[in-house]
């Protein structure tokens, strides 16, 4: 089962949930929030938020409004707003986002580019170390 307490408020109404025993291959496009606890190979593009669980395995480029990453990603990540990388994350690819937080223990192998034109929401990223785009 999902660790419900780990899925934040914005993801409870997720349009798409890839559960732990499910593998998706291909290009997944959406206008809603997406939760990934399983395997994704291909591409992911959404105008909503993406929650990537601690045991998720992803071999795909990701584009989203915001993302929380806990699993392993082999691919590039392009986020319009906030990218939250937690300690269990392993990212092998380039990152582009407007705001980022990285927990101790996370692995990040790739180039990190900060974009300029993002206005952070008031309630996001409290109590997190944060690097803002210039």
């Amino acid at each position, binding site marked *: 089962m999902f660790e419900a307490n780990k899925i934040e408020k914005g993801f409870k109404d997720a349009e*798409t949930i890839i559960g732990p*025993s499910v593998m*998706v*291959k*291909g*290009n*997944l496009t959406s206008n809603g929030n997406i939760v990934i606890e399983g395997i994704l190979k291909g591409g992911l593009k959404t105008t909503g938020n993406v929650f990537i669980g601690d045991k998720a395995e992803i071999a795909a480029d990701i584009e989203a409004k915001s993302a929380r990453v806990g699993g392993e990603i082999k691919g590039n990540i392009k986020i319009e707003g906030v990218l939250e990388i937690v300690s269990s994350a392993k990212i092998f690819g380039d990152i582009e986002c407007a705001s980022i937080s990285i927990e101790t223990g996370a692995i990040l192998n790739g180039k990190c580019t900060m974009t300029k034109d993002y206005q952070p929401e008031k309630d996001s990223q409290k109590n997190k170390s944060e690097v803002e785009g210039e």
Partner: protein
Amino acid sequence: MYTYIYDDFTNQSKFSKLLYKIEKRLTDLGLNGKIIRLGISKDLNAAVENEIKQGTKTFVAVGNDQTVSRLTTALANNQNDEKHRISLGIIPLREKENKIADLLGIKDVNDACDILLSRRLETFNLVRVNNDFFIFNAYIEASDTMLEINKNYIIQNLKPALVEIINSPIKTEGGDNSYGSNLKLKITSKEGESFFSFKELIAANKKASMIIDWAREVKTPVKIMPSDEVIKFIVGKDRKIS
């Protein structure tokens, strides 16, 4: 004009007393009509076509989910324009095999007769599965079900799982719920649940068939998509859908 479609199993002697009681009650209520008994040799599509031509305005499925599902598909596949004026009632005979009746608020035989008299109508969108249709639910319970969504991506359940396609079938005034919009796919396994929405889905499993509306088997691969076919059910006031 009413036409009652009796399922094959109603020929069993244990149902004769109950059917007599139902027929008497329907006559008392002024709802009596023609009775068609399904059997191996009976072509339901031809019977439906013939009865529509004869002027039937209401079909009543006397049986279980399978009876309702077969009759729904026969009506949806019928080419006669008059079918849009037809409504479908249910008289449920086997308690545990009547999920559709239960969802429509039809509890038992007596309740069903009163509901037919009340004639509360609700229009439902149907979902196409190859040449069949379903109202509420289609599922495959097995491992290794391959699912292709919108021709964009493939989903595979790696562990044994229940793969369900869920329709929200009620057609609302000035709009609709399922036709033209997305259907829902739910995958449930011991490990957790997955949800997807789609406009077109192809499902295949080498070992298991798809079950539509808890009643009928459809061999895979199947192509599933919203349809513009609707059906008007006579429903109870305590229906479990809205």
